[in-house]
């Protein structure tokens, strides 16, 4: 009796690939090399590698690195169709931009991450933009810089600047108007408190306004087209503090009282300046632009100072 050698059948390459895809679909988070090996123990490592490479180049598998080693994940079919026309480089660039998320990424950073030359990057970016996969957003911090992000994402606040910026322009008149309105509100509150003539404790406490009250007042005034949050109002009130017109105290408030943040409330009060404009600025010398050049006997001297002459004629 002759020995029948059972030749191991070379498994069909196509079968391997479809088997791997099935496995991937079973484990949507990704499978390691180990899992594939366990499933098809009779397959050689080389054949496995060939199959996986083919799937990767066709764009049906994603290659990821994890703490346990390499992971293969089925690629989202919709995405896979999108990228079908592109080549590897574009896919790589797209991936980098996707990772940047909300904040977007600058073209130089893309270059660093992908190690592609500048010309290539530019070509790819133009390509992707025309396919409406990414968009360029101008950053408000550096007006020449453009950051790229996915088409359907909302740019983050730090890029567009938030409520004070409209189309990359700082709206200073808007800020000024808000500034004056807040100050007028606090001033009238302080005056009302002063006229009430009660005992001083109550007088002072009633001249305070919490940031929540100011916020409500501004919202009701309706001068703002954009929705303003309480933090925005607090930044406006801070500028009033830096103008020296308003002072702030923080008191501990019970959690749950309206307008309290972390158990604290900020109260603001209009104040009058501490001193009158000081003596030095009432003389021409205090405001003179050529003060340092002025000395007796020179071109500019006290004896022939035109500012003084003008001032004396008042």
């Amino acid at each position, binding site marked *: 009796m002759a020995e029948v050698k059972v030749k191991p059948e070379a498994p069909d390459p196509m079968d391997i690939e479809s088997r791997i895809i099935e496995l991937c679909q079973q484990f949507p988070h990704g499978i390691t090399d180990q899992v594939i090996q366990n499933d098809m123990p009779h397959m050689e490592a080389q054949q496995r590698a060939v199959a996986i490479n083919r799937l990767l180049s066709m764009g049906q598998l994603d290659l990821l690195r994890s703490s346990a080693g390499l992971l293969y994940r089925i690629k989202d079919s919709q995405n896979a169709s999108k990228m079908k026309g592109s080549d590897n480089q574009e896919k790589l660039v797209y991936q980098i931009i996707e990772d940047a998320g909300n904040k977007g990424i600058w073209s130089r950073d893309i270059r660093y991450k992908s190690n592609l030359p500048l010309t290539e990057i530019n070509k790819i970016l133009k390509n992707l933009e025309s396919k409406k996969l990414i968009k360029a957003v101008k950053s408000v911090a550096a007006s020449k810089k453009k950051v790229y992000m996915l088409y359907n994402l909302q740019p983050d606040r730090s890029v567009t600047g938030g409520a004070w910026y409209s189309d990359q322009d700082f709206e200073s008149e808007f800020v000024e108007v808000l500034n004056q309105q807040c100050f007028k509100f606090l001033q009238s509150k302080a005056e009302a408190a002063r006229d009430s003539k009660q005992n001083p404790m109550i007088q002072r406490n009633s001249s305070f306004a919490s940031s929540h009250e100011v916020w409500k007042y501004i919202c009701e005034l309706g001068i703002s087209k954009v929705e303003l949050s309480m933090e925005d109002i607090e930044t406006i009130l801070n500028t009033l503090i830096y103008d020296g017109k308003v002072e702030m105290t923080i008191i501990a408030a019970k959690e749950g009282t309206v307008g309290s943040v972390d158990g604290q409330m900020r109260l603001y009060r209009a104040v009058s300046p501490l001193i009158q404009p000081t003596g030095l600025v009432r003389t021409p010398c205090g405001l003179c632009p050529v003060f340092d050049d002025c000395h007796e006997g020179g071109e500019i001297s006290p004896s022939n100072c035109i500012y003084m002459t003008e001032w*004396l004629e008042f």
Partner: protein
Amino acid sequence: MTQAELRLCSLLLRENFGEIVEKVGNSLLRTGPRPLRLLVGDTGLLPDQVKKALCVLLQHGLARYEPQPRGAVEYEARGERVLRILRYPRYIYTAKTLYGDPGELLVEELLLHGHLPMSSAVARVADRLTETMEDGKSMDLSEVSATFVRLADTHFIQRCAAPPAAPPEAQAKDRFVVPRLGLVGKGKRRHSCDEEEEGEHKAKRQKQEGGSSEPPPDDGIYWQVNLERFHQHFRDQALVSAVASRMDQTSSEVVRTMLRMSEVTTASGASHTQPLSSNEIFRSLPAGYNISKAVLDQYLALLADDPLEFVGKSGDSGGGTYTVNLHKALVSLATATLESIVEERFGSRCARIFRLLLRKKHLEQKQVEDFAMIPAKEAKDMLYRMLSENLVALQEIPKTPDHAPSRTFYLYTVNVMAAARMLLHRCYKSVANLMERRHHEMRENKRLLEKSQRVEAILASMQATGAEAAQLHEVEEMITGPERQQLENLKRNVNKMDASENQVDETIFMLEAFIESTMKRP
């Protein structure tokens, strides 16, 4: 001393004492202590003149002398004291508001003469007052000496220190003792002064017996004005008015009471007053204010809680003890002065950036724009302007050892002491400029002034001899209309410049007090 201070000192000396004293003073200020021979050589004047000039300086307390071990005596000029001459009008005005006309004239006489014994000061003032009163009346010497005693009690005037030979112990205790004088004034009244107070220690009372009537019994006891005390008073005034503008009138009265109570108990350079209990304050409130104790307590609590931190609570005994935080108050007032200067010179947005930097100490350019809500371009421009004027400084924090600009943090900051000193220097120069301009104006119109003086003299003599109205009129016509107008203008301008010199002096006082108080702290 800086150039600006030297220039101002020499202008003041020239205006008040003449050119010789100015030369001597200048030489002393520039070169420090020197003996008489070198001084004569330096100034090129005759030894006699130099001696007389030195006498004048010593009499007014503008210079000092010290016997050296080798027998020579070295003279040294005191620059800060010379600068106080600028403030004389303010001292006199304060004395007037506090003690009326006798007080004003007493302080004026003492300032103009440097040192005076009490008897001659009182006599002079009485004569001056008598001149201004109606015919037939004359000023009572006792009233004037009463004012003198009150001035001494509140430490506004003090005895001059004896020559260095005397032991220093005796001087300190007797600084404010008024000698017994039998002043034979109108009505032959005897006036016995029997109060004794020490400078820094508690007051003790001692009765002195006997009386003397030989003139002048207080030979050798000279009095001078105590400038430190006046400065204390100005500082208190500034504090009270700041509290009044930030809070209300009643709070400022409370603070004024507290300061008045600590006038004589607090050393002049202290950073806090002595603790005062609320009961004491209640008892010392001025009579017109009848607020209840509870309301007073509320006011005190409000003052202690205020972000200004002028008043602090230091304990609970006696209904709560409170102190006035003098150093903090001076710091606040000085920063307010700095801020107002920045505001007037550069605009209110710059002032916003300045205050922002004062609060937050160190900020990057981007952070400044964000906090102040000013567009980037304008913020940059303002920061650079202030930087060029040295009001704002840049602090570099390198990320790499080679300090490459693109990899360094640049933080803007305000150095308050440096800015205060710089502005003080500017103040001195401004006052000097104003004085120069005033002299210039007087010189320009010298001819006109002389003419008007001659005309006045003629008028006066003609009136004395009883001339007719027509002749008087003719003489008056010698000054034409436009000339009269010119004279009017001149008078107005000179007054304006005088007034503004005083105003700048207020700024000088504020900044100097702040610098002094900061330097004294350990």
